[in-house]
C-alpha cells in the first residue's frame, strides 16, 4: 500500500486539524457549548464571567435541563459574586449541589445570595480585626472555613465575639478554631470550655492541620462518657505542649481498634 502525500506542510496542517477536532470532540462540554452560544441573549450576559464558569454553568444547565429563566437568574447571581470578588468555584459547587438535590434554580439563587452575603460579612470581619494582614494573604480556604462555620451553627454575633477576643494567631489556625467551635456547639459541649480549648490552641499556636479533627475526637470521648471537664483538661495539657492530636487521643484512652470501629462520621 503506497500513500502519496502532497507535501509535509499539508501533512502537518492535516494532522493539527485532526488532533484539534479529536481533542474537542472528546470534551463533553464542547458540543453543548456550541448550542449554548446560539442563545445570544444569555451569552451576552456571560461576557464578564470567566470562560470556565460559563462552560460549567452551561454544562449543568444542559444536564439538569434548567430553563432559560433559571440560567439567567443564576448567571446574574454569579456576576454579582464576581463583582463582590467572591470565589466563583465555591458558588458553582453550591449550584451543583442544589441541582443534584432537585432544588429549583430560584431557590438555588437565593441560597447563593445568602452565601455571598456570608462571604462579604466574614471578609469584612477579618479586615476589621486583622487590618495589618494584606487582603491577598487572607486565603479563600480560610474565608470558606469561617463562612462554613455560620452554616455549622455559629451565629454571626458569636463569630464576631470570638474573633474579637481571640489571641493573635495565624489565620489558618483561627479558621481551625472557629470550625471546631461550631462543631462542638452541635454536640452540646460546654461553650466556655470549648472557647478555653480554642483560645489555648491559638495562644500557644498549636493548631496544626491535624487539629482540624479535634471536634470528632471530643465527640467520641463524650460517647465514652468522659465529661467535658476531663476532655478539656486533657486537651489543654496537649495544646500547651504543642503536641500532635494523636497524643490527645492517647491521653483520652483511645486505641487504634476502637477508633476504627467508630467510623469518623
Amino acid at each position: 500500500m503506497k500513500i502519496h502525500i502532497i507535501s509535509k506542510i499539508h501533512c502537518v496542517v492535516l494532522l493539527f486539524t485532526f488532533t484539534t477536532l479529536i481533542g474537542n470532540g472528546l470534551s463533553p462540554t464542547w458540543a453543548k457549548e456550541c448550542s449554548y452560544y446560539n442563545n445570544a441573549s444569555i451569552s451576552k450576559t456571560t461576557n464578564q464571567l470567566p470562560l470556565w464558569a460559563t462552560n460549567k454553568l452551561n454544562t449543568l444547565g444542559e444536564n439538569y435541563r434548567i430553563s432559560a429563566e433559571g440560567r439567567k437568574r443564576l448567571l446574574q447571581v454569579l456576576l454579582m459574586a464576581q463583582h463582590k470578588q467572591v470565589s466563583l468555584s465555591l458558588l458553582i459547587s453550591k449550584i451543583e449541589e442544589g441541582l443534584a438535590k432537585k432544588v429549583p434554580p430560584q431557590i438555588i439563587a437565593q441560597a447563593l445570595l445568602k452565601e455571598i452575603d456570608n462571604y462579604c460579612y466574614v471578609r469584612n470581619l477579618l479586615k476589621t480585626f486583622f487590618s495589618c494582614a494584606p487582603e491577598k494573604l487572607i486565603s479563600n480556604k480560610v474565608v470558606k472555613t469561617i463562612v462554613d462555620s455560620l452554616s455549622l451553627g455559629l451565629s454571626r454575633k458569636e463569630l464576631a465575639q470570638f474573633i474579637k477576643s481571640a489571641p493573635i494567631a495565624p489565620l489558618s489556625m483561627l479558621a481551625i478554631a472557629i470550625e471546631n467551635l461550631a462543631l462542638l456547639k452541635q454536640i452540646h459541649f460546654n461553650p466556655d470550655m470549648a472557647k478555653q480549648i480554642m483560645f489555648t490552641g491559638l495562644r500557644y499556636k498549636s493548631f496544626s492541620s491535624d487539629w482540624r479533627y479535634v471536634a470528632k475526637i471530643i465527640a467520641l470521648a463524650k460517647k465514652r462518657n468522659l465529661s467535658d471537664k476531663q476532655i478539656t483538661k486533657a486537651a489543654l495539657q496537649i495544646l500547651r505542649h504543642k503536641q500532635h492530636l494523636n497524643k490527645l487521643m492517647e491521653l483520652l484512652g483511645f486505641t487504634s481498634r476502637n477508633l476504627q470501629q467508630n467510623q469518623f462520621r
Partner: protein
Amino acid sequence: MFKIFSLWPPEKKNNELDSNQDQELLILARRLKNLPDREPPSDLADKIIQSLEPKKLSFWKKLYVWLITPKAITISPLKLAPALALSLLLIWLAFGNFFSGSQVFKNTQKLVPVTFVLHYPQAHSVSVIGSFNQWQPKALKMHNKNGTWTLEIKLPQGRYEYAFLIDNKLVIPDPKAEFCKADLFGHKNSIIFVNHENPHNI
C-alpha cells in the same frame, strides 16, 4: 579570443561559404597554430570543479526544500496494525479522563476507605451525593442487602459534606452522622472527616 571571434563571418549556411571565407578560415587556423604554446594555470582544474559543486544552502532553506518535496510512504497493512493500536492507546491515555463520570478515585493522594451505611427498606435506589463526587447522583450508587444500603469508597483526606439521594427524589442526611451543616436550601448535609495522616485511620 575576442579578436578571433570578431573575425568570424556573419551567419551563413555551410554550403554558401565562398572562397574568400575559406581563405579567412585558413588564415585563422594558421594564426591559431602560430599562437605561443602556454601551460594552463595550475588552479584551473580546481576552479572548474569548484564552479561545478552545488551551492551550500542555509538550514531554513534546506528545511523548506525538505518540506515542500513530495514524499511517498510505503505501508504494510500488517505492520500498520500494531502502530494503529499504539496510537489508539496513546489517545486513550491522553483523553481517557473525559470518559469517566467521577473524579473521586483519580486523586493521587493517599486514599482512606470509608463505608456509608443507610437502613432504608422502602427505597428502590439509594445514591451517595457529596462534595467528594461533585454531588453527582449517578456516580456512587449504594448496594441493597435486606433493606440496608451500603457503599465502600476510598477518599483522600479532608472534611466532606454528603447526603443520601433516595429514589432520585428524596434527599436525607445520614441519621448516624454526628455533625451536620445547613445546606442553605432548607436541608442538612452530613459531615465526614477523613484523615490519612493519623495512624488510626480516622
